[in-house]
């Protein structure tokens, strides 16, 4: 863990830069924030943590002027403020970096920075001035940006720093970052933390929304935990620890998983890819002749930064995308020409999709209707063309019970469930019946700790029952904790395999598209960055 450069006391002069009092926000019957007090001191890095649906994003959207509270008041630097829009919040000095960037890939970094208000002479764009200003800003905030480069050619970490700079230009004092490391390699995340420390040193106040406890202790001075729309009083990072925070977030003791606590009993080959290639939706090569072998009774982890071909890999195996070459073999049977998801499911492939809202569930349909897709074709759920409603209800109730899905009833729409419970619906459906190969793509993304724990256990149980589990995840901790072997995916190719006790740093180098030769030099750079 990194040493904090400044103690909270030294970084802060004790004044409240952002002071939110009694914030209440309702969405219909749901209370997202109830009487939340949230105080951030001037010049600190303040982590706002909590499970999905705890209300952290809502609170920060209110702070950034994107939403208006039903009750409560906001003071910035001691002045009472009321924001009608993000513009108002920016005028008060608050800027927010969202998870999803709004950058124009074909423009340069400098052009993106000044997209809203380009520097001009009497209304005429001045490209020289624009480039000079951009370079100045990059230097001043120590962001190290190649300002003349096209945004589309930059790594995600650089794009994120462009967003940070844009946020600093609109809101000069308080910077809110929403789950900033979700898209970064560990190395890029370290760079981000260095940037945040530098910004703190220059007097900025930083609020970090996250659910990764490791980051909280790497960079934050103080921490506010939210649960069920309420906020706990803030704690100093120096006086807390991960298990205490986890307990506050979940409301009970949580077993924080230690890496490498798994046992595999690898059996015969369950899934084999032979030099499989495919294109992504834009027609570019997404998989570049990749091969892998997954055995029954093992979890093969695929690590990597999102967007390096993992989605396409899963889709190709699931029958949702056609390979341009190569063979897909399930338990010795070539299924390459069995092109449809239907045919692949018949071959024993189950699939927890990476984007559950897009294809994992039909939100307006009931829990039962979402659980029965697949088994509905066979007895006892149907007989001839007819569904058997009693059998369907019993089937749904059994799964709801076995997987602990928190829902008012089997007849409630899935849209009414929390993210974790929606994912449990998906997991329950996919793990019911005979599973030869389980494709688990980011199975715990956006899911609360309790549900994540449960889902991990389900994956291990599927392995124990003899399924081959392909675990694709951008969360390194998850991959390392569960996998028996690890492959790293970068640029549509694999590196590895690695043993699960491989260092995070080594995986990070491969995730960034590096190779063995870079391990040494990168390690040196790593020290420079932390210093």
């Amino acid at each position: 863990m990194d040493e904090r450069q400044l103690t909270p006391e030294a970084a802060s002069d004790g004044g409240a830069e952002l002071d939110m009092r009694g914030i209440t926000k309702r969405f219909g019957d749901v209370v997202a924030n109830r009487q939340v007090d949230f105080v951030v001191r001037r010049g600190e890095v303040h982590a706002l943590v909590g499970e999905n649906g705890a209300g952290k994003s809502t609170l920060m959207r209110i702070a950034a002027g994107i939403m208006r509270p039903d009750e409560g008041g906001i003071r910035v630097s001691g002045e009472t403020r009321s924001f009608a829009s993000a513009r108002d919040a920016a005028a008060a000095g608050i800027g927010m970096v969202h998870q999803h960037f709004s950058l124009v890939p074909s423009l340069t970094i400098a052009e993106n920075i000044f997209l809203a208000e380009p520097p001009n002479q009497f209304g005429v764009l001045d490209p020289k001035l624009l480039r000079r200003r951009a370079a100045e800003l990059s230097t001043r905030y120590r962001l190290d940006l190649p300002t003349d480069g096209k945004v589309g050619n930059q790594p995600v970490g650089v794009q994120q720093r462009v967003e940070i700079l844009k946020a600093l230009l609109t809101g000069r004092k308080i910077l809110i970052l929403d789950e900033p490391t979700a898209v970064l390699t560990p190395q890029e995340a370290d760079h981000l933390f260095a940037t945040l420390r530098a910004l703190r040193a220059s007097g900025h106040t930083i609020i970090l929304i996250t659910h990764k406890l490791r980051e909280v202790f790497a960079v934050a001075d103080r921490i506010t935990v939210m649960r069920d729309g309420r906020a706990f009083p803030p704690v100093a990072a120096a006086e807390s620890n991960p298990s205490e925070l986890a307990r506050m977030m979940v409301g009970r003791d949580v077993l924080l998983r230690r890496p490498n606590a798994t046992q595999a009993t690898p059996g015969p080959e369950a899934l084999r890819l032979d030099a499989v290639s495919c294109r992504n939706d834009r027609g570019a090569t997404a998989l570049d002749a990749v091969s892998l072998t997954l055995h029954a009774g093992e979890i093969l982890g695929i690590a990597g930064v999102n967007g390096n071909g993992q989605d396409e890999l899963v889709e190709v195996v699931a029958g949702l995308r056609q390979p341009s070459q190569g063979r897909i073999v399930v338990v010795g049977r070539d299924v390459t020409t069995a092109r449809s998801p239907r045919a692949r499911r018949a071959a024993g492939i189950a699939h927890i999709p990476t984007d559950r809202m897009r294809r994992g569930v039909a939100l307006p349909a009931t829990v039962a209707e979402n659980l029965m897709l697949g088994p509905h074709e066979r007895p006892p759920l149907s007989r001839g063309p007819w569904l058997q409603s009693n059998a369907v209800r019993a089937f749904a109730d059994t799964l709801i019970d076995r997987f602990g899905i928190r829902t008012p009833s089997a007849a409630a729409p899935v849209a009414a469930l929390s993210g974790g419970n929606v994912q449990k619906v998906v997991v329950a459906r996919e793990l019911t019946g005979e599973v030869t190969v389980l494709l688990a793509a980011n199975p715990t993304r956006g899911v609360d700790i309790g549900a994540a724990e449960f889902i991990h256990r389900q994956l291990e149980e599927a392995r124990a029952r003899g399924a081959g589990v392909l675990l694709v995840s951008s969360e390194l901790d998850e991959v390392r904790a569960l996998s028996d072997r690890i492959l790293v995916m970068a640029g549509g190719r694999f590196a590895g395999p690695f043993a699960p006790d491989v260092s995070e740093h080594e995986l990070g180098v491969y995730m960034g598209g590096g190779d063995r030769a870079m391990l040494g030099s990168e390690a040196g750079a790593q020290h420079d960055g932390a210093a």
Partner: protein
Amino acid sequence: MNRDVVIGRILPGLARPVAAVAISLAAFALVLRLSGYDVAQVYATLLRGAVGDPAAIASTLRWATSLIFAGLAVALPLRAGLFNVGVEGQLYLAGLVAALIGLRVDLPALALQPLVIVAAAIVGALWALIPTLLLIHTRASEIVTTLMLNYVAIGVADYLVNNYFRARMSAEAVMTDRVPPAARFPSLVPPYPVSYGLIIAVALALLLHLFLKRTKQGYETRMVGLNREFAAYGGVRIGRSWLVAMLASGAIAGLIGAFETNGVNGRFVSQFSPGFGFDGFLIAFLAGGSPLGVIVAGLGVAALRAGSLSVSIEFGMPRITIAIMQGIIILLISAQLGRLDFVRRVVRAFRLRSVIGPSMQVVRHEHDSQS
């Protein structure tokens, strides 16, 4: 299910259409007022014309027959995520075939009438098959193809009638001869033109309700409509669901043609449909895509149509004026249809997000944050 769940699920389903109708009645009152009409009198006449006496009720039921069919023909594809804008053309060709069979085939009524009905349904289904195959195999938007095939169907039918089947006695109108009594659907309540088509329409609504709720294919159809990607990922054969929904839709459209031609009119008359295919959208939207709701909405719109005839006679008001009210209803109801994935996509394409309201934006956001 406990009471809360029942109320929670049904009330929002009813609240929107009821509110939409109420608001449009009010807005229409304003239009009437500004045009110098006595609002109370107009509405009283409207009501009398719809249910005021046996003739009025018969008039409502006469329209209800075709409008329930039309509502079902639109609602079923809607549940599969498709817009069949081609009901108009499907019923038109079916109407011609119904008349021709009535004119050319010599069978007793008991055999002839089922033949007419089945043939009309098949013609409607075949005309709907073309855009469905184009959709499945070439991804051609069924909205465009079904709409355009209307013009083809109407043009072809009119051409055929004008050149080959035109009535001997008519100098002006493009129409066929009267079909013989054996081919003519008898009236349930003479002398009004209410045939047993009404019973078939209501029975069909019940059947479709059962189909959607109780059969495998119905369940798959609904899943395709609610989230096509979910259905595909789960192994549902999308094309089959589309084919079933569209062929059934076309067949139901065909029934309109049969009962209008061989029932109400007694012959094929050019331009005989006053826009049933489009009224079908109003009804299906009002019903939220539910076949049982289509019965209610179909009766309601039929009453409006019957009543508006009285109003136009009594006040000399152009009948098109009533269309203003229907237009207002359809606007208000569309705002509810954010629930259907398909409509969501169409609406999104037209950037009407603000009209749909926050519930849809939440869904959108979740989509975004996952991708």
